[in-house]
């Protein structure tokens, strides 16, 4: 039975990324917190105005809320339990652990006494989302400040109770200790029966990295046991009583419109609900087998116009640039006099580089469980932007945001691919019609097709260099892939750098490090090409043109550890690529070996040197660095989305190769722990150096220059392949 008297809804397939800010900041006022959490001590950190505009999208406060923009809050309960609340979410980058360490450090409390509520829109302060490697530079700092303030309040409470100066007291292992008398009061005893709420300015002094005892150490994943026992419930594992299973009838191609649909056979199945609403057709059933069967019985006819295919992609990108007036002002950088510098040089080069679309392919596909209760909607879903999903739901259903509760259980990864809420909207649409909670888990094919892709790109580079190896001119045009990492950090007097947006043939969005991988690939391969043309060592050539001290350091320290100047076996090649992204400095070194009889090129070893300031969790950081490089092998060598006329041709793992055990060479990370520098993120930047380093190593070994990502298909005409 199709519900008849419902307002037609438009589900917008193009909504992803940084959508317009929503209207309300808080669900709960200060008093509500003690109702939810019980008595105790409640500390919230206020943002400065500038930060508020940047981090919260300049949203205003409703009347009864806390007095300023708030970024994080923390509660100490009467039993001594410490709970911190943040809009950041855990997607495998291990911030539940690193943020716990930050709190334990400042609050001088045992790690076991601390828990984090993350990404629950009813309980946490508004947050734009978990992207851009912002958690460590921003949220880690905020939670440290809140924790430091809580510690000061506890010290003051004990001082008052004992009537002694706070200076003779110290915080230690969840207690305030009187250093003169050795008496102590636990945090639980101190907050018993209290309802103290404080908003602190964002400026409490913090413990400097050199004095850290918990932060800066390798703490294992705080809830690791739940993952090795299968106990942890990911978004796709959520369940409610009387829950139905949803399934969506997908269009025949991208941008297709529904011409006609016959749902009669599907509706005959027991318990099946069929929904047709604008271009959306879906079913819900008491079990997934019935839902699958129902979808197979729906007869839908779609119309789609002819669309661009992957074989004509790069011509399309060059020829379909958006009009200049639609662009953002900072899409172009111009310094010095580029044309004059190019005209006066005898060593000029011009090259084109291409980057294909790739898929994030998170192992857990998009999943949502939606439940309506009267006009209140609750959705558990895997997303990097719980508040963004809430806005999408509010808009799709014409429901105020305060009636929507989005919860984000720690999910099966995202890599920038889960910013959007389409699965949540679909599940909620089905649940409203079914009058049951509905769980929708996308299939792998759906995830490969109806999510969004890392943008493809065409990059043109023109350069000029003087005899002594100083670059004099640099022209860089990126079509479509994006402007992240587009600026050169080399010291070049005459530059023109421009990003040319294109109406992309495929739906595209964020991906780990955004366009930085593409821009670094073109830049760092081109640097290598210039160095070889001058018969200069590629590393020496980079350093000759580089002033930035921290970037020089990762190149130099990495080269030492890699033994860049050491001996190289016959048919082996060395390559380097590096740069700067999301406040982190990276240099990656690669060795490859060519087997001329088998035609195989093998990655022998990878080393990434990385500086992200003071290291919060060395083991977690190593895990990110090495993981990013392994993920990067896919985009560098073989990952590529093939599409034809609005359809994805390789939408399963058997047709879309991702890195597996045998693809991994010897791989190492060098951490430049800069205790004199603020801690910044590490989830993204470490991926940027790998692809150019591989290309440059292959050139070193074979003389073959690979200018496209993925590089694997380029080897075939030479009778070679990556093993």
């Amino acid at each position, binding site marked *: 039975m199709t519900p008849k008297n419902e307002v037609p809804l438009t589900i917008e397939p193009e909504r992803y990324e940084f959508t317009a800010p929503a209207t309300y900041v808080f669900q709960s006022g200060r008093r509500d917190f003690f109702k939810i959490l019980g008595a105790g001590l409640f500390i919230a950190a206020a943002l400065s105005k500038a930060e508020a505009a940047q981090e919260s999208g300049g949203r205003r406060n409703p009347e009864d809320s806390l007095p300023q923009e708030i970024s994080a809050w923390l509660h100490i309960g009467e039993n001594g339990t410490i709970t911190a609340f943040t809009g950041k979410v855990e*997607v*495998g*980058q*291990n911030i539940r652990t690193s943020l716990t360490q930050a709190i334990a450090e400042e609050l001088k409390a045992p790690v076991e006494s601390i828990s984090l509520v993350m990404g629950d829109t009813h309980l946490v302060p508004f947050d734009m989302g978990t992207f851009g490697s912002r958690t460590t530079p921003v949220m880690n700092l905020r939670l440290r400040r809140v924790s430091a303030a809580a510690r000061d309040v506890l010290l003051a409470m004990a001082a008052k109770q004992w009537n002694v100066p706070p200076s003779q007291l110290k915080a230690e292992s969840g207690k305030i200790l009187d250093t003169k008398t050795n008496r102590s009061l636990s945090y639980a005893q101190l907050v018993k029966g209290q309802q103290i709420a404080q908003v602190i300015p964002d400026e409490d002094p913090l413990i400097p990295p050199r004095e850290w005892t918990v932060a800066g150490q*390798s703490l*294992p*994943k705080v809830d*690791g*046991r739940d*993952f*090795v*026992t*299968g*106990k*942890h*419930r*990911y978004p*796709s*594992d959520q*369940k409610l009583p009387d829950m139905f*299973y949803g399934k969506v009838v997908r269009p025949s191609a991208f941008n297709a419109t529904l011409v006609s649909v016959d749902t009669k056979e599907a509706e005959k199945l027991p318990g099946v609900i069929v929904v047709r609403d604008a271009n959306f057709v879906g079913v819900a059933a008491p*079990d*997934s*087998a019935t839902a699958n069967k129902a979808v197979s019985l729906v007869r839908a006819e779609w119309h789609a116009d002819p669309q661009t295919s992957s074989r004509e992609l790069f011509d399309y990108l060059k020829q379909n640039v958006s009009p200049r007036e639609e662009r953002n002002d900072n899409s172009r950088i111009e310094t010095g006099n580029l044309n004059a510098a190019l005209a006066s040089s005898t060593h000029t080069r011009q090259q084109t580089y291409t980057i294909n679309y790739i898929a994030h*392919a*998170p*192992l*857990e*596909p998009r999943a949502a469980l939606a439940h309506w209760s009267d006009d209140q909607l609750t959705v558990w879903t895997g997303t990097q932007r719980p508040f963004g999903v809430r806005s999408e739901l509010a808009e799709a259903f014409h429901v105020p945001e305060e009636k929507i509760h989005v919860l984000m259980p*720690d*999910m*099966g*990864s995202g*890599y920038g691919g889960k910013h959007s809420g389409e699965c949540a909207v679909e599940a909620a649409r089905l649940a409203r019609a079914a009058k049951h909670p509905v769980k929708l*888990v996308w*299939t*792998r094919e759906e995830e490969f097709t109806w999510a969004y892709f890392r943008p493809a790109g065409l990059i043109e580079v023109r350069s000029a260099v003087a005899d002594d190896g100083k670059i004099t001119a640099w022209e860089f045009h990126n079509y479509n892939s994006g402007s992240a990492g587009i600026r050169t950090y080399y010291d070049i007097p005459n530059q023109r750098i421009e990003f040319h947006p294109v109406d992309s043939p495929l739906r595209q969005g964020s991906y780990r490090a955004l366009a930085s991988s593409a821009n670094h690939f073109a830049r760092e391969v081109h640097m290598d090409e210039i160095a070889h043309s001058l018969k200069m060592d590629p590393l020496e050539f980079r350093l000759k043109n580089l002033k930035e001290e921290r970037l020089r350091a990762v190149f130099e320290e990495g080269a030492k550890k890699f033994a860049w100047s050491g001996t190289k076996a016959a048919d082996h090649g060395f390559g380097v690529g590096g740069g700067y992204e999301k406040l982190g400095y990276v240099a990656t070194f690669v060795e490859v070996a060519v087997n001329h009889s088998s035609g195989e090129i093998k990655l022998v070893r990878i080393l990434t040197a990385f500086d992200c300031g003071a290291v919060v969790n060395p*083991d*977690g950081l190593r*895990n*990110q660095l*090495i*993981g*990013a*490089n*392994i*993920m990067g092998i896919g985009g560098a060598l073989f990952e590529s989305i093939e599409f034809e006329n609005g359809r994805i041709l390789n939408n*399963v*793992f*058997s047709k879309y190769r*991702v*890195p*597996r*055990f*045998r693809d*991994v060479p010897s*791989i190492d990370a060098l951490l430049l722990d800069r205790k004199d520098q603020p801690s910044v993120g590490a989830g993204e930047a470490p991926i940027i150096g790998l692809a150019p380093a591989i290309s440059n190593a292959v050139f070193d070994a074979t003389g073959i220059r690979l200018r496209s990502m993925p590089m694997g298909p380029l080897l075939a005409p030479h009778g070679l392949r990556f093993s």
Partner: protein
Amino acid sequence: MSETSLHINGREYQLTADRQTSLLAVLREFLDLTGSKYGCGEGQCGACTVLIDGKARRSCLLPLSATEGKQITTIEGLAKGEQLHPVQQAFLDEGAMQCAYCTSGMIISAVSLLNANRNPSDEEILTAMQGNICRCGTYPRILAAIHKAAGVLQRGQP
């Protein structure tokens, strides 16, 4: 639809289901054993791996009809009470996970390997594990964890 009896993690379950339903759907939907994960539905990623009579099988491709009379072990059934299986413990010790969505399948595949071979070489581990995908790229740590667990099992602990 028919009555089926399943032996899972040392317990007996009776249920009524279509005999063509995948074991993965039965575990997750009917029995609420959600430790085995859906990742691809074509036996390519290994996230759904369970032990059938001690050997790794992809539960997404296994119809219910093929599991009768067999001993099924899922990630939920590996630990003995509070005592983790040495492979589970080794994954924790080596920090061999990030998002950990692949972890159940990785652990089960490794247990299957170690059931048959107490001292696998790198090469034997790669062969056994090549069908399991970790998108976060924790492969070197998983390799280290399997070696570590092999050492523990060889010494007869626990």
